């Protein structure tokens, strides 16, 4: 097989793509630190004023906190529900997997707006009036991250050959629950952490469901950003960049973990 070699055509294509993709990011970044930026290619002066103002804004810190705790609760709930369920299905009910696959693809195929309409219709009246509450949003978030969680946990279980591990543990006299807690869980943990972080970053960027379900009552970072866009461009830039850096940190951690996992699996 010939070694891949990139000619100048390919280099140009990639350069163009990168410029196209990174330009909006760079602009937001510059705008967040610019004093004046009107009729020049680069800003005329720099300032940290916007960042300072952002951290002084109580609503920003509130929104950040709301986002963090809503995402954390949803992911924790999802972990608590999905770990046993995926374990039981993968180990004891492999026949159900086809059904599960279909169920888990649904959140991909159903857009956020549609899911929001369904949730509003189901819970805005009747015995279970959850409209505008965090409970409804957490339930919605659970469904959003369902594919990531299911796939992540299932892959980890298969990678560590959970069934064989479980059998050996039982052969050596461990009870089933003990085998799950001391053998299976520590082994799948790295994979589970990856899907947890991924789910967290997906939820952190969620806007549609949040805005439609609880927009008037709870402000997450995305909803807050949406509200501020109309007010001060520089301030909104600072917020967008902070948000982006946070997600970047999260995904870097994700990648590092993923590489580590691959290293372990390859050995």
């Amino acid at each position, binding site marked *: 097989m010939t070694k891949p070699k990139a000619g100048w055509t390919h280099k140009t294509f990639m350069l163009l793509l990168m410029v196209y993709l990174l330009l909006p*990011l760079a602009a937001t970044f510059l*705008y967040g630190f610019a004093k004046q930026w009107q009729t020049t290619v680069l800003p005329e002066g720099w300032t940290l004023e916007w960042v300072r103002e952002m951290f002084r804004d109580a609503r920003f810190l509130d929104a950040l906190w709301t986002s963090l705790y809503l995402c954390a609760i949803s992911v924790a709930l999802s972990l608590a529900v999905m770990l046993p369920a995926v*374990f039981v299905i993968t180990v004891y009910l492999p026949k159900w997997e086809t059904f599960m*696959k279909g169920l888990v693809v649904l959140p*991909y195929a159903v857009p956020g707006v549609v899911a929001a309409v369904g*949730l509003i*219709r189901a819970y805005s009246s009747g015995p279970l009036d959850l409209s505008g509450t965090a409970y409804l949003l957490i339930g919605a978030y659970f469904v959003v991250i369902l594919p990531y969680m299911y796939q992540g946990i299932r*892959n980890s279980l298969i990678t560590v050959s959970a069934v064989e591990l479980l059998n050996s543990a039982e052969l050596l006299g461990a009870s089933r629950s003990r085998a799950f807690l001391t053998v299976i869980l520590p082994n799948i943990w790295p994979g589970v952490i990856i899907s947890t972080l991924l789910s967290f970053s997906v939820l952190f960027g969620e*806007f549609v469901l949040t805005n439609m379900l609880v927009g008037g009552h709870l402000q997450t970072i995305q909803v807050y950003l949406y509200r501020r*866009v109309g007010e001060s461009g520089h301030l909104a830039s600072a917020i967008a960049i902070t948000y982006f850096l946070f997600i970047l940190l999260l995904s870097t951690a994700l990648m590092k973990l993923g590489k580590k996992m691959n290293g372990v699996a390859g050995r």
Partner: protein
Amino acid sequence: MKRRNRWMLLGLIPFAIMVFAFQVAPILSMVSSSVHDPKGAGFTFGHYDKIFQSAYYLKAIKNSLLISVFSSLIGIAAGLLCAYSITRFTPKIRDRLLMLSNMTSNFAGVPLAFAYIILLGNNGVFTLLFRQWGWDVFAGFDLYSWSGLVLVYVYFQVPLALLLLYPSFYGIRDQWREAASLLGAGRWQFWRTVGLPMLTPAIFGTLGILFANAMGAYATAYALVGGNYNLLAIRIGSLVAGDVVNQPELGSALAVLLALSTLLAVYLNHRMSKRSQRFTASYASVPARKRERIRLKSRGTRTAEEAGA
């Protein structure tokens, strides 16, 4: 299942409850609401009828379809070129480039719309610069209308197309290229008769995902044009959770139509990726595929097939 394992089923109960309450029940409730007669307790197709009679809603559907088709086609074209280019680099550089391109997908939604407003909005940096330099080529460009929306949609379609398409280029073996050139085929002829037909299932499959992605996109359009541009997703949002008049039944009917279109597109992807697997599965060596799959997943590709596979 052995009897002593029966109690294991208890582990499924919370899962079943959550899925029923927040996934199945809302969909059922939406579908039933879309055929519910607000005046009585009867069953009616009146809401669908109303949609297909109304120029306003038809326009929204048409706009959404057009923008999805356009942005998907542009996304596929750019994605194909870039995917081919990216496979020509060494794996190390390729992975870096892919990482950068995926990174930008975190920037979708409200922040993306905002970045474009800074660049090309009414008082955008480029808008003012071009005006000052007297470049009136861009005078006809309006970020808050059709052309602007297409531009912004394409932005989030290209990285997705790239990510979904580049693995299938590895399915085209170098030996084939050599064989074709030995038999006298030129570069162009090779791509026309061997390369592109090989890629066709992957292209159509990706097209399905891109289309569904654009049809369902709400945040970007909402943040960019608000209610000023007539799009299906935005209409649904304002009918159900709007400030003015709530017409939940009509909103439900529109949402059912939107869901049907995205389900259809995702189904297309599913069928096509089954077909393209026939080509690639036998070729790719196992460790490389495994690595590929794990990396794809850790970056959260939104392909339905990944979720299903």
